[in-house]
């Protein structure tokens, strides 16, 4: 038998025919497509019984209740807690992204010690024992050198048990330098303290107000408790008029009933112009002014000196014609604004810019607050009230030794509460300046940072970095590799909110005294530790009287002691209402020297002696910004977007994904410019440009936007991160690197709302 080529071909044909009639090709074709439907590299999440855990979101001070859906031990979704009084089942994009923080790529997975240069990102994982002993060693060393006051701790909040624990630790250790980052509430609280004599948090009963006159507050962009504000907007839209005074058509302005464009920085003048119309047309609430106000009319003091009152000042200096010139708001608009405000049943005036991370000018805040007094809507439903802090976290004084006592008597490094700024409590923005201005050894020898990211959030990034370079010992407690963590010597990563217990104080601006409790909804994903526990362990390690000041086993035990009777409800429902013992928010009770609402705040201590009345009364002087108009013809302002976090929490990938392509394209951010300004300068939509300010420069693109005043340009806050993960780092520029702080001479607060700038083609 000969086997030739043809036999072979024949065999092949037979094989083909046979195979075609066998299941092989058909089954394989099917199975291969099934394989593509179940590619091993496309995850198929495991199912199982689901459960819901309630907790509170602490990503911002909003205090929303959340329910976390879990499948077995995985957390798969965060939704709003329907029965929660603040958010009523709703949630903001940040809260909804929470699980990206829990499982995301920017977490610090274990305690770390820096091995490379600062900020280089070279780390060595260490154990918790090593980490805590390294920190306490440094603390002991500083105490031995009699310098406990050179330790400072930047804490993201000053209310709640964790900040109080930290404060107590510093007290026991001997440092007065507990510092919280600035907030618009600094100005609110200071105004309320000066004009009403009440210490506590300022609440705006927007729910029950029927006319909201907002001087630039980003009510729908993250101000106060964001979901509360959005919820009010959606649910009570028909029962109130909202007027937004702002130089940019922000989301809030766009959704307001009326948008009043204004020359930026002149909001205070407009408030006084409105006051002028109200007084002149006798539209103010006489019953309140006559009975409960001081300093409205001219008056004579005990020494027989004649003082001018608010009325005289406003009638003399703030005629609508003059105000129209200052603010570029037409006179007729000012009059209409005043009449509508005065005639509303429960009008409320609110000052502040955007989200509220900038305290702003005290004068402006007081001028706006004076409007609330003119309509008598203070400490009333639908108005502004001051609620004192609930006293659930009060413990016996700490017994401290001489070293600590000496340390505690040292002036605060940031100057708050000192002779220059007696009314301020924290002035974090001054810290870099103080350090940089000190010759020789830095006044801060060790800096602890928890739930804050000053290297990103402080104005003038360059100066901040220079100051940090002079601090020999830098510890971050951040859960994430943020800018400050990346720059520190040790990272002692905190659990994130979904892994830890923490009480959540009443959110800013809220009337109802809701206290929330964040609870661990999943086991800690990484080798992290609760910062409260770490503080307790540090105290223990320092020993003697410091240890004795902290008689609790761990943070949870401490928390349970604090909340006593409230604990069960907190554990069960996740929130409770805790009222201060004598709190009557609606009581018409002022604790000023006169017992009245003071247009002329006698408690306003002012270093200058000249022209006292005008300086003490709420007045207007243009809030200065840096830069000369001839070199920098434009004004650069930041804006807040609710889709972009600008505080210590970096934007999660989900939120970055929602950002429009007219705000960020590839890695470059857009600066908004009025088409008229752009045309004059020869720019078109999407053009690349360089923005330069006296503090820095940034490469940007231009977005032509009709909703911004000609001559003003605006950029979003929250970009320009250099840390976190590739999903955030390197996108756009940080506004804080383009601006420096401007200290309000009266309050010490930062007032830098913008800076002069120029743009040139890139």
């Amino acid at each position, binding site marked *: 038998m000969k086997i030739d080529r043809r036999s072979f071909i024949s065999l092949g044909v037979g094989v083909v025919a046979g195979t075609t009639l066998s299941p092989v090709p058909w089954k394989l074709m099917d199975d291969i497509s099934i394989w593509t439907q179940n590619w091993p590299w*496309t995850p198929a999440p495991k199912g199982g019984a689901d459960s819901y855990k309630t907790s509170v979101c602490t990503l911002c001070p909003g205090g929303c209740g959340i329910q976390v859906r879990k499948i077995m031990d995985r957390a798969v979704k965060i939704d709003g807690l329907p029965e929660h009084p603040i958010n009523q089942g*709703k949630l903001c994009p940040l809260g909804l992204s929470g699980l990206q923080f829990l499982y995301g790529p920017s977490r610090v997975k274990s305690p770390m010690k820096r091995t490379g240069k600062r900020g280089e990102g070279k780390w060595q994982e260490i154990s918790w024992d090593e980490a805590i002993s390294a920190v306490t060693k440094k603390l002991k060393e500083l105490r031995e050198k009699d310098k406990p006051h050179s330790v400072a701790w930047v804490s993201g909040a000053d209310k709640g048990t964790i900040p109080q624990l930290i404060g107590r630790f510093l007290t026991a250790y001997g440092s007065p330098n507990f510092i919280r980052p600035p907030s618009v509430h600094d100005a609110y609280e200071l105004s309320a303290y000066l004009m009403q004599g009440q210490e506590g948090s300022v609440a705006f009963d927007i729910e029950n107000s029927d006319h909201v006159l907002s001087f630039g507050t980003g009510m729908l962009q993250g101000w106060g408790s964001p979901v509360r504000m959005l919820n009010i907007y959606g649910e009570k839209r028909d029962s109130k008029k909202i007027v937004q005074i702002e130089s940019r058509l922000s989301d809030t302005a766009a959704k307001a009933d009326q948008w009043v464009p204004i020359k930026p920085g002149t909001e205070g003048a407009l408030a006084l112009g409105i006051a002028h119309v109200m007084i002149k047309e006798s539209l103010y609430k006489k019953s309140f002014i006559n009975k409960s106000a001081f300093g409205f009319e001219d008056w004579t003091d005990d020494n027989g000196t004649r003082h001018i009152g608010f009325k005289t000042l406003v009638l003399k200096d703030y005629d609508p014609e003059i105000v129209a010139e200052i603010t570029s708001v037409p006179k007729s608009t000012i009059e209409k604004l005043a009449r509508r405000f005065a005639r509303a049943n429960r009008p409320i005036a609110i000052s502040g810019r955007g989200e509220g991370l900038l305290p702003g000018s005290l004068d402006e805040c007081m001028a706006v607050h004076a409007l609330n007094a003119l309509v008598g809507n203070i400490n009333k439903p639908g108005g502004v009230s001051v609620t004192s802090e609930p006293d659930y976290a009060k413990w016996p004084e700490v017994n401290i030794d001489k070293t600590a006592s000496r340390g505690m008597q040292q002036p605060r490094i940031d100057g708050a509460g000192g002779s220059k700024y007696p009314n301020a409590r924290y002035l974090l923005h001054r810290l870099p300046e103080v350090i940089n201005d000190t010759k020789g050894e830095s006044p801060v020898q060790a800096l602890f940072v928890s739930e804050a990211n000053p290297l990103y959030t402080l104005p003038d990034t360059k100066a901040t970095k220079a100051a940090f370079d002079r601090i020999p010992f830098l510890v971050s407690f951040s859960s994430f590799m943020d800018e400050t963590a990346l720059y520190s010597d040790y990272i002692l990563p905190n659990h994130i909110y979904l892994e830890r217990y923490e009480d959540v104080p009443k959110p800013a601006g809220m009337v109802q005294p809701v206290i929330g409790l964040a609870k661990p909804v999943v086991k800690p994903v990484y080798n992290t530790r609760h910062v409260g526990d770490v503080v307790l362990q540090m105290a223990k390690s320092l020993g003697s009287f410091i240890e004795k000041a902290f008689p609790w086993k761990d943070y949870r035990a401490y928390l349970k002691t604090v909340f006593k009777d409230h604990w069960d409800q907190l554990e069960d429902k996740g929130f409770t209402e805790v009222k201060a013992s004598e709190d009557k928010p609606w009581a018409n009770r002022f604790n000023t020297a006169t017992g009245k609402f003071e247009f002329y705040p006698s408690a306003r201590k002012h270093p200058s002696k000249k022209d006292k009345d005008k300086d003490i009364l709420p007045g207007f002087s243009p809030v200065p910004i840096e830069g000369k108009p001839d070199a920098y013809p434009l004004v650069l302002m930041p804006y807040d977007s609710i889709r972009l976090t600008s505080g210590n929490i970096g934007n999660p990938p989900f939120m970055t994904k929602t950002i429009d392509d007219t705000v960020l394209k590839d890695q470059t951010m857009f600066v908004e410019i009025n088409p008229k300004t752009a045309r004059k300068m020869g720019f078109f939509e999407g053009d690349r440009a360089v923005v330069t300010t006296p503090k820095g420069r940034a490469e940007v693109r231009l977005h032509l936007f009709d909703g*911004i005043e*000609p001559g003003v340009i605006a950029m979003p806050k929250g970009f320009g991160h250099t840390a976190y993960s590739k999903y955030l780092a390197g996108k756009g520029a940080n506004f804080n690197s383009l601006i420096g702080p401007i200290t309000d001479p009266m309050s010490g607060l930062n007032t830098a709302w913008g800076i002069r700038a120029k743009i040139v083609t890139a």
Partner: protein
Amino acid sequence: MKEEQGDKHTKRYGMVIDLDKCTGCGACMVACYAENNVPFKKNETDKLDSLNWIRIFQLTNGRSYPDTEICYLPMPCQHCDGIGKHGHPPCVSVCPAIATDYDYSTGVVSQIPTRCFGCRYCMAACPYHARKFNWWDPVWPADTEKYLNPNVSARMRGVVEKCTFCFHRYQQARDKAYLEGRDEIYESEYQPACAQACPTNAITFGDLNNPDHAVYKLKNSPRAFRLLERLHTNPKVYYLSSKSWVRRAGDNYLENESRPESNRQKIHHK
């Protein structure tokens, strides 16, 4: 339909989005990503290469400072009923492999990524750009794979995906109803993630055929309009706006052509 016997009528699930209330916060988008296992990339700024089942558009009235107005418009899949009797959306009939269909019992337009072979004809057919293509393999960095929702399949590279009105939630609600021996599911039992999250309650969802559901009344509001009604896509997503320029921006009109407010009602009840 043995298992559907209890149904009193055919449902037509739909959505009413109140643009007067929408502040453009993006909560709907994020809630959707989180619920539906939508992945994310380093660069999501190319909106034509970015998986979004609902996307917020910013509309402006085109006037200059200070008369400018803006309006946010969230756009999910419109779940069109289509020309003629319902069941003929632009995308369904074009799919060569029946990877998308119109569910007559709920009115939901489905998309089955495992059936889809990625020809993208449906994307060409959809005037709303509601359909998105998986140009990339989805990647969940670090431990983010752990948060994936087991009720929604992750999509592989090379297929089309879109908003499903969170139909898995309907299925879950049905399961519960079966267990409890109920024929109907309650309005509150089936709400998509976007409607659930929306902080201003701008998104209302329910059965457009059911007079007890909130959407039934809202869709007949004088503020109501739909996108591209003139194409007879007959969407089940309605929008509300008190501003006439916004209502006009929802469709194409010839110059000098006025928006026929009265005709609109006719199309509604087709």
